[in-house]
């Protein structure tokens, strides 16, 4: 119905002009809900206003908006006025300010009826009352003034107003921001009803939950550009663009276990302005204002806008101009075709003598995510993590990092690989030499690399190099919130507490500005309050620096709080891997269930092995302890299966089907 093609909008403001929309193309169709998501300042409301013809006069626009084939951008105010309310209606964001404070709401809602259709006042009021009742506003409340209503009631009043003429196109700008959960449910059913009636709906929201539940198509806007177009049901689950991933990770839902992740860096507006050069020539270019200090405020004219905040930016991102390209059911604006695998481990095997530590494990790690490996002691989780970090060599299998083979990389350029990966070890006090000062500990990775870069360098390092090294060390210390006073730098580790030493280790891992951090039980030696601080610090660092983290822990409670994905290991094999929320709420492998139940304290006695029957080495490692065992569990390792349509994999013949939530309900009922 409404087609928007290559639409750009620039707000003029004195010397600066703000580029609010940049060649946006999409369409609204009958009985179809399109949702615009994005941070504030990304141009969502501008788009809505543009469709309604409500942009300020000084806005420069380009491109076309067509309603049923008729161009809207050239319409004068009068013709537009005829379209508004009757064909296109909008529910505004700042609801309380939209209503006239000196009129009763029923009169205000009736207004479009009277002016657009010429219906008599009494009749109009009757229709209005019906509509308001439909919006569950009681007859008593209808005759109140706007200031006597709650935010939710005002929102519903505006809805009634927008719907009173049964428009074909409806634009909703943040409809649920003032609504509680119960009203939101009402809202969802209302949207579905409108959809079935064939209304074309543009929903602007930052409530991703609402988007998933109602919308058909989602469009991710960033600084006025469409970054990703995707089916709305894929939101929160299958995402391609790092920007969408970061957005969805930030949103709290009932079943996301790790949320409020946030996006690194700051949101900023794009300014285009004209520089007058000394020779009288002018040169227009774009500024990214506020907080974008990374490149002196100058935005790349070419290249990806999201680059400074991206977790997987490469040099190429800054050079080419990027178009939306089709990727499956999605459309993505990314040079790398969406989020990439930073690290891939394929069929890794490792044995220490006769003991198999890791058996045929395959994991891939997406850029910018936290993967937690959980499992009991001796399950090979540390070995797998250290193989990923390049600290241990595998017996067989492939491992690639940034599309390069790790083994070759280490062989040829040991140092360059070491600066890509930072390792945090289990026991902080053990992992630093107590003869080093704080400064030496953090600078050690730099010392190691400087020493060999020139034999003479160790003897008399030049002043600038020293200065650079010092700067890096101080930055790393600031990152982990440790003091940088000279007095502190000369301290020795035995004068610090465990938490501070662990921070030192984190600083040491960060000093080379790595991409990947491998943290091996970084908090198991710490008490709960220090553990909380260290974990929060790691999470913040992950977001601010766009790190990818492999986190090894035996504590599924910790894993629940921090991970994007969880990988459960048992006896060297991966038994289940998937998004953290799925693993925690709907575990499929009995062993995962056991881990979760025992973490919840619901497992009262330790189950000793069920039978004396020997499990063949090929059998499922959990077969002896498993209550869901079937005959073939003893002989062969179950093949990999996945939960329908999800990246949730498990290796079990007889998976758990009852979700733990239902089970909890059931057992509560029995009590």
């Amino acid at each position, binding site marked *: 119905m409404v087609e928007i093609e290559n639409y750009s909008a620039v707000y003029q403001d004195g010397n600066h002009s703000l580029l609010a929309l940049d060649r946006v193309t999409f369409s609204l169709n009958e009985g179809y809900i399109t949702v615009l998501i994005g941070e504030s300042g990304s141009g969502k409301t501008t788009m809505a206003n543009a469709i309604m013809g409500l942009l300020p006069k000084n806005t420069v626009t380009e491109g076309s908006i067509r309603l049923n084939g008729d161009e809207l951008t050239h319409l004068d105010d009068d013709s537009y006025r005829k379209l508004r309310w009757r064909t296109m209606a909008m529910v505004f964001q700042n609801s309380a300010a939209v209503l006239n404070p000196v009129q009763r709401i029923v009169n205000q809602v009736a207004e479009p009826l009277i002016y657009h259709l010429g219906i008599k006042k009494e009749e109009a009021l009757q229709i209005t009352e019906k509509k308001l009742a439909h919006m569950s506003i009681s007859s008593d409340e209808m005759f109140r003034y706007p200031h006597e209503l709650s935010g939710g009631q005002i929102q519903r009043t505006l809805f009634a107003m927008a719907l009173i003429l049964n428009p074909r196109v409806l634009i909703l700008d943040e409809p649920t921001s003032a609504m509680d959960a119960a009203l939101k449910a009402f809202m969802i059913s209302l949207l579905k009803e409108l959809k079935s009636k064939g209304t074309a709906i543009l929903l602007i929201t930052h409530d991703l939950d609402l988007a998933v539940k109602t919308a058909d198509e989602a469009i991710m806007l960033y600084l006025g550009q469409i970054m990703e177009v995707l089916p709305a049901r894929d939101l929160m689950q299958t995402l391609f663009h790092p920007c969408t991933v970061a957005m969805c990770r930030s949103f709290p839902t009932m079943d996301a276990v790790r949320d409020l992740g946030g996006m690194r860096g700051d949101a900023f507006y794009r300014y285009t302005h004209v520089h007058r050069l000394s020779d009288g020539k002018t040169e227009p270019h774009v500024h990214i204002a506020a907080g974008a200090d990374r490149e002196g405020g100058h935005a790349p004219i070419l290249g990806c806008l999201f680059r400074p905040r991206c977790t997987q930016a490469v040099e190429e991102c800054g050079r080419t101009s990027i178009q939306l390209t089709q990727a499956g059911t999605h459309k993505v604006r990314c040079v790398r075709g969406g989020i990439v695998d930073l690290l891939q481990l394929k069929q890794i095997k490792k044995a220490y003598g006769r003991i198999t530590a890791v058996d045929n494990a395959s994991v891939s790690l997406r850029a910018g995510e936290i993967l937690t490996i959980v499992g009991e002691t001796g399950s090979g989780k540390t070995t797998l993590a250290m193989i990923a*970090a*390049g*600290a241990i060599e595998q017996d067989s299998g492939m491992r690639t990092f940034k599309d390069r083979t790790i083994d070759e990389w280490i062989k040829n350029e*040991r*140092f360059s*690989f*070491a600066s890509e990966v930072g*390792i945090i*070890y*289990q*026991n902080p006090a*053990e*992992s*630093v*030499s*107590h*003869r080093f*000062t704080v400064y030496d500990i953090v600078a*050690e*990775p730099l*010392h*190691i*690399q400087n*020493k*060999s870069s020139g034999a003479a360098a160790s003897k008399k390092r030049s002043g600038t190099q020293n200065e650079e090294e010092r700067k890096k060390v101080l930055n790393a210390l600031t990152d982990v919130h440790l003091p940088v006073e000279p007095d502190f730098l000369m301290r*020795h580790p*035995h*004068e610090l507490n465990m938490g501070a030493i662990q921070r030192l280790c984190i600083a*040491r891992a960060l000093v080379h500005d790595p991409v990947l951090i491998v943290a091996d039980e970084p908090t198991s030696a710490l008490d709960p309050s220090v553990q909380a601080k260290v974990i929060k610090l790691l999470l913040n660092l992950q977001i601010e620096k766009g790190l990818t983290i492999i986190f090894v822990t035996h504590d599924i409670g910790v894993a629940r709080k921090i991970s994007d994905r969880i990988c459960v290991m048992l006896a060297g094999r991966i038994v289940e891997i998937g998004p953290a929320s799925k693993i925690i709420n709907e575990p499929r492998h009995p062993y995962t269930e056991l881990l979760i139940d025992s973490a919840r304290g619901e497992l009262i006695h330790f189950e000793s092995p069920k039978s004396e029957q020997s499990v063949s080495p090929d059998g499922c490692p959990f077969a002896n302890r498993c209550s869901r065992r079937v005959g073939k569990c003893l002989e062969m390792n179950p093949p990999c299966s996945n939960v329908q349509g999800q990246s949730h994999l498990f290796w079990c013949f007889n998976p758990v089907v009852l979700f733990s939530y239902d089970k909890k309900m059931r057992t509560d009922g029995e009590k």
Partner: protein
Amino acid sequence: MSVPPVMIMIIVASFMRPSAVTLAFTLSLVSWPTTAKAIRSQALALRERMHVRAARDMGGTSSYIIVRHLLPELFPLYLIGFIAKLRMAVFMEASLAFLGLFDPARKSIGSMIRYALQYYYLDVWLNWLIPPVVCFSLIIMSITFLAISLEEVFDPRLKEI
């Protein structure tokens, strides 16, 4: 290793011209293995310590790890070994001189004690004996004290803040 060093010393002293250099050389030749064994076993244990592994994971070369991690950690061990051997060497030189297996023209605490004991029938022998014996004890004691303070200087954990 099982042959007592003092026997070797006696044999060497009786067959060769017993100069101070020969003495020092032979003494070090017979006394290093015990300390070396202790240091080696300690180094093997140290190699598996977390901070050494960390340095290796950061790309540290063997020479870097030896200089920056192993040598400082092993310092107390070879300091003690060195001091013990030093004391032993002083003692052994004294005993060789006492036994008369040493260049008689050279001044030595051992020969002083020997001469003092040769005149025990005179009244003065005690006055001749006591000064070298006291000196001898003082030397050995001061070497020990030196070791203790050296360790304090080089280990940050023992330093007064």
